[in-house]
């Protein structure tokens, strides 16, 4: 756990003094990944560097796992947390393996353990261990160097990580993969992480909570969906972007809105005229056709007129597979592309699990943004 209490930092003194952090109080809970977000110069790096005492507090208190950082031994304090510096900062005279193992060597791990750990970390950052181990930083691309920087910060498996734009130089495809890998690891290891980024997508995807800064102030500190749904003021609304409803959809999963017991289902062996009667009685516009627990497709009344065969022969297959953990953003995208308002959802074994509809998604979004108009009048906040 990291707590910031009335933290302020002023660089220099007299007329040239720069106030980088004004008066910030908040807390990063144990096991949480907290994003520091904000425009250039708002004080994100400064706050990280105050945390591991690379720079000295002007006012206030920072505690890490209960210990006041200003009272800790700085070398021990820093060894206990991983640090990935914004400028990457690999040691050019050392091989990749030696760069990664910097902290384990400081802690006196034995050689075999270090070697294994280096291999593990290289694989984690998607670089072939055998090919990269003995190279030098100058032989790597910027994005590859940055991945080594991340590996170096994780090397001794610290409980606390301070990461300053750790994926900023990595190309979008690899970044996506490393983010996923990192999240997977984080779910397992539950580290306490302060993670700086400029990238709102990355913030929403990675953060348990997001802290948004402006000119050395903490403006909002909330879960991503709350920041997207209820930005505290116009500054944050602008920062998260006009498409924030779509961004919320990126966060929500099918399982949160789906109907697990839809009544508009029909067994595949049912004959067409029976199904048609069922449809008309209930006033449904279409039915999901099931066979052996699986959704084989859907039918609507037009297809059933003057037919007698079982509906499974008439059903139209769904054009896409929708899983329970799929983001609603993708579902909406399918619905728009295929002009459908309802899709069948499958569970992990491919069995029918329920349906997801356009109306359910919209309802959920409206719920999240309910009351926004009262909260948003930016005028009286400025």
């Amino acid at each position, binding site marked *: 756990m990291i707590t910031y209490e009335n933290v302020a930092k002023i660089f220099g003194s007299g007329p040239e003094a720069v106030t980088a952090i004004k008066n910030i109080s908040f807390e990063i809970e144990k096991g949480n990944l907290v994003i520091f977000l904000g425009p250039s110069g708002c004080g994100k790096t400064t706050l990280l560097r105050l945390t591991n005492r690379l720079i000295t507090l002007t006012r206030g208190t920072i505690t890490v796992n209960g210990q006041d950082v200003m009272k800790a031994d700085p070398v021990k304090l820093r060894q*206990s947390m991983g640090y990935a510096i914004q400028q990457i900062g690999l040691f*050019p005279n050392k091989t990749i393996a030696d760069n990664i193992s910097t902290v384990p060597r400081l802690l006196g791990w034995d050689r075999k353990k270090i070697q294994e750990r280096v291999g593990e970390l290289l694989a984690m950052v998607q670089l072939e261990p055998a090919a990269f181990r003995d190279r030098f930083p100058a032989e790597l691309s910027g994005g590859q160097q940055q991945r080594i920087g991340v590996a170096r*910060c994780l090397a001794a498996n610290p409980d606390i990580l301070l990461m300053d734009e750790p994926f900023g130089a990595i190309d979008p495809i690899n970044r996506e993969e490393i983010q996923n890998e990192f999240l997977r690891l984080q779910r397992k290891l539950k580290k306490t992480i302060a993670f700086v980024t400029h990238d709102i997508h990355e913030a929403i995807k990675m953060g348990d909570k997001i802290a948004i800064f402006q000119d050395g102030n903490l403006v909002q500190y909330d879960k991503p969906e709350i920041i997207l749904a209820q930005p505290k003021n116009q500054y944050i609304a602008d920062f998260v972007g006009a498409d924030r409803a779509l961004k919320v959809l990126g966060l929500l999963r099918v399982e949160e809105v789906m109907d697990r017991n839809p009544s508009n289902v029909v067994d595949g062996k049912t004959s067409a005229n029976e199904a048609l009667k069922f449809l008309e009685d209930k006033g449904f516009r279409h039915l999901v056709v099931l066979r052996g627990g699986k959704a084989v497709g859907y039918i609507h009344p037009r297809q059933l007129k003057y037919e007698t065969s079982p509906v499974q022969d008439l059903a139209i297959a769904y054009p896409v597979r929708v899983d329970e953990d799929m983001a609603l953003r993708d579902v909406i995208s399918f619905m728009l592309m295929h002009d459908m308002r309802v899709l069948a959802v499958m569970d992990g074994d491919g069995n029918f699990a329920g349906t997801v509809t356009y109306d359910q998604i919209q309802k959920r979004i409206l719920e999240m943004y309910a009351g926004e108009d009262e909260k948003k009048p930016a005028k009286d906040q400025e």
Partner: protein
Amino acid sequence: MEVIHFMVNNAARCFQLTLEHLWIVGVACTLAILIGVPIGVAITRSKSLASKVLNTANIFMTTPSIALFGIMIPILSPLGYGLGQVPAIVALVLYSQLPIIRNTYVAIMNVPPELVDAGKGLGMSSWRRLREVEIPLAVPVIIAGLRTAAVMSIGIAAIAAYIGAGGLGVLIQQGIGRAYAPMILSGAILVSVLAIFVDGFMALLERLVTPKGIKVGRRMRHG
């Protein structure tokens, strides 16, 4: 022609004087490194101290050598070392301080700040950072300073013959005394050849101590 004659006829003496010359310079350079590098590192911690130390070293370097040898005599005489190799070596050590201290200081100050930050941030002590990062990166520049110091010392050591230090300066000194040009020239030529040889050796050393990762980086940048 006569010069070659002289050298061939006095080959053993020339060789012995060359070795003596090399010995004086070698001892002086070794001591200069042992003193200068730690000073150069130490003054990176304080800007005001750095400028004081560098100015002092500058004064030594700009003092005419003959004057510095002269000053050594009264200072070292009470210890029984007014003349001979000791004052010569002391003077050369003083001369060498500026290039060595300055190069050490500049090289360490020029280590990119993000590397210092990364080292600190990962929990390296300042001693450890010095040993693993700053010194390895600075060493080629320090050797370049030593190279300057060594070549300069070879020249200055020739004058140390006047305070009885021996070395190739003896040929020049005696040649002047006897107004015998081939002898003077032999001394001068041998001093130059020695300087060229040492300079080449130092260039090689500079390349050898450059960390592999840095060489790789240079190759990548220059294709």
